[in-house]
């Protein structure tokens, strides 16, 4: 009987939630064939009456089984609520019926699992995650069938198979702006709540101390457990390397892109710029001079070199460039995260979240080739700089500076973020007087050489570069009017900008948890990443939608998310090993669905 309740409860929770969503008329913004459109999140399985009847019947069954096991008045109250749900149904009040069933499911869970211990919470979690995993798997199958079907009508609704998964995820989309903002504000928030320490010996103080102790212990154990999920690490890393490269080619197949349109808004600018440059240059030297006077010279040079090397035009070289850029970013992110956590699963997870999450989807939509390359070089540079501090090696620091200059040449924005993060870290190190002066020397040398390079490029040679771009953004784009209208701008950014690529709540949930982990386990390495987020805060609060989006794009949010996710996995593995395996499969399918949903709907 316990088992029946444990199996029925997750079904009731999920399906009554879906029907409540359906009847409440909740709308979300979905990108379907490149157009962002408002769609009601309604789901009908057979018809509204039968759907609600099935849910009410499950609610009644659970209530009776609970009352049979424990003859206390709350159990009979649950039977009464289930009966009311059926009465609502008979009166055609479908919304009230589904809502009552949802209440029954939630109250039954609290009552049976937490208060009466009638059912096991871990078993319930196992069945609930299995059900969600099944929905995710059906979603992936739906997209694969959609891709293999061929000759699809581009304005057709998504097939019901993936509809269920899509609508569950989008029902949480109002949380995206709130969670992303909370993540960006987390460092000032930690400072604000610091005086509100719970009273020693109280329950909240005990819980907080336990959480802190668990986090510190888990972070210090991460390096020892590096091989714990060896197979999983390989799967996540391999998928992160392969999937975006495959997606690049998938974008130009006749099934996904029947009109063979160029995907990636900025790609046209790169192509146009290079064509103009080639047409207006008398010789190779002049061409090179003009390329280096731009702010994305390395990216332009790579597109030019590839097109010359393979005798293809700039357009073709640019549209397939993500197949090279994405694995490069993944490798640099992998080594940076591995250096931070000394844990292969954490590093692989960060890569997978970046490869299938908002970063990659936004980059595909926008064709942010230079940003892709710039961020990869920035991550590499930061990783080597951390190593130079550890090894106290000036030679390694030189390599790191060289890579940061290359990132400056690739794109000015990631370089500016890195500089701001390192400068803030240097200030933090100065404020914490117990930290060694050697670290400060390395940080100062790194900043000084980079600033000198930018000064020569922008002020002496009068080329465009990071500080010129930053100056122009600060003077023309940031304003207090944007702060006053923050939410409409931010919500617009989440729902509409780059096709709503940033509208994916799981990343921000895990990133928030990761930020808590980074703040509790205080290491210099973690502080650099925290300062990176802090550097983005003024842009996020005072900027228009595209500046907010670029901020989210250029902070290592996936490293934070993987840190948070690994903490959840560590916690679950202590309770139940199967649960942690289920979570890993769930994450894999959830993110894969996100990428497939976006890629399939990217072209007209």
């Amino acid at each position, binding site marked *: 009987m316990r088992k029946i309740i444990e199996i029925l409860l997750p079904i009731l929770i999920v399906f009554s939630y879906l029907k409540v969503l359906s009847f409440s008329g*909740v*709308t*979300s*913004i979905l990108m379907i064939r490149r157009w*962002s459109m*408002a769609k009601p999140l309604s789901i009908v399985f057979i018809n509204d009456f039968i759907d609600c009847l099935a849910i009410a019947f499950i609610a009644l069954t659970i209530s009776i089984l609970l009352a049979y096991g424990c003859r206390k008045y709350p159990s009979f109250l649950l039977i009464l609520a289930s009966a009311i749900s059926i009465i609502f149904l008979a009166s055609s009040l479908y919304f009230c019926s589904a809502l009552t069933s949802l209440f029954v499911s939630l109250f039954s869970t609290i009552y049976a699992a937490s208060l009466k211990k009638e059912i096991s919470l871990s078993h319930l979690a196992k069945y609930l995650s299995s059900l969600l995993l099944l929905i995710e798997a059906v979603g992936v199958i739906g997209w694969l069938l959609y891709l293999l079907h061929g*000759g699809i*009508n*581009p*304005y057709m609704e998504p097939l019901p198979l993936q509809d269920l998964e899509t609508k569950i995820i989008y029902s949480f*989309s*109002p*949380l*995206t*702006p*709130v969670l992303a*903002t*909370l993540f960006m*504000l987390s460092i000032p*928030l930690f400072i*604000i*709540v*610091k*005086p*509100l320490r719970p*009273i020693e010996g109280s329950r909240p103080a005990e819980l907080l101390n336990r959480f802190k102790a668990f986090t510190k212990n888990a972070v210090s154990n991460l390096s020892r457990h590096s091989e714990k999920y060896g197979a999983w690490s390989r799967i996540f890393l391999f998928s992160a390397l392969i999937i975006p490269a495959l997606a690049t080619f998938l974008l130009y197949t006749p099934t996904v892109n*029947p*009109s*063979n*349109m*160029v995907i990636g*808004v900025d790609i*046209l*600018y790169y192509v*146009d710029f290079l064509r103009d440059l080639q047409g207006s240059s008398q010789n190779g030297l002049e061409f090179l001079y003009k390329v280096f006077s731009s702010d994305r010279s390395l990216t332009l040079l790579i597109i030019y070199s590839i097109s010359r090397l393979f005798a293809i035009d700039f357009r073709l070289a640019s549209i397939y460039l993500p197949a090279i850029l994405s694995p490069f970013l993944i490798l640099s992110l992998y080594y940076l995260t591995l250096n931070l956590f000394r844990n292969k699963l954490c590093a692989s997870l960060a890569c997978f979240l970046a490869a299938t999450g908002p970063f990659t989807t936004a980059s595909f*939509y*926008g064709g942010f080739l230079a940003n892709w390359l710039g961020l990869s070089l920035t991550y590499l540079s930061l990783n080597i700089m951390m190593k130079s501090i550890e090894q106290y090696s000036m030679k390694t620091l030189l390599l790191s500076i060289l890579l940061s200059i290359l990132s400056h040449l690739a794109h000015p924005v990631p370089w500016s973020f890195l500089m701001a993060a390192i400068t803030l870290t240097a200030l933090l190190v100065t404020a914490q007087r117990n930290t060694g002066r050697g670290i400060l020397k390395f940080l100062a040398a790194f900043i000084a050489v980079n600033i000198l390079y930018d000064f020569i490029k922008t002020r002496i040679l009068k080329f465009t570069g990071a500080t010129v771009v930053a100056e122009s953004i600060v003077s023309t784009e940031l304003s207090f009017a944007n702060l006053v209208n*923050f*939410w*409409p*701008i*931010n*919500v*617009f950014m*989440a*729902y*509409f*900008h*780059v*096709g709503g690529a940033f509208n994916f709540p799981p990343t921000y949930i895990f990133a928030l948890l990761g930020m808590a982990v980074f703040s509790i386990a205080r290491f210099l390495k973690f502080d650099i990443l925290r300062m990176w987020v802090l550097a983005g805060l003024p842009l996020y609060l005072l900027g*228009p*939608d*595209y500046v907010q989006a670029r901020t989210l794009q250029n902070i290592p949010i996936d490293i934070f998310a993987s840190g948070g996710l690994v903490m959840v996995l560590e916690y679950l593995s202590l309770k139940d090993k199967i649960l942690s395996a289920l979570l890993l499969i769930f994450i894999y399918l959830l993110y894969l669905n996100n990428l497939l949903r976006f890629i399939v709907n990217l*072209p*007209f």
Partner: protein
Amino acid sequence: MDSLGFKQILSIMLVNLIALWLTYGYLVAANPLTIKEAPGKLNCKLSVDYPDMIVYGVKFGISGRLICEDKMPHQLMAQALLVCGDVHMLTVNTTIVRDDGTFKVYLEPSFPKPHTNNIQCGLTVHVISKTVSTGLMDKKTLTMIVPS
């Protein structure tokens, strides 16, 4: 019980204010239809010159011009979408709007050949600012000749 200090009172006030502000954000996000699709709507007019007739398999160009009352915004793009008959038959191309507001988009109807001699097509031109539609659009119905 310990009394609350200034720091704690300030902290409680700030936490409450931020919580209220985030709740307001959630309410804005929960009502997506209240968000304007293009916050900085352009004060511009779009005029497009269409060909009188188009021929299947033959490349053609559409030229157009944006006339703005204020300064011409940078980084605008014109996107042309040609849909003939059912939606299987479509072609899209995008071009950059020049600083003087002019643009020219070329399209080549190279989708699967229709079985009729002529077919009605809808040609839509959208002006896009970076990654977001500006709301500026123009549309015309054309006849496409299908050579035998």
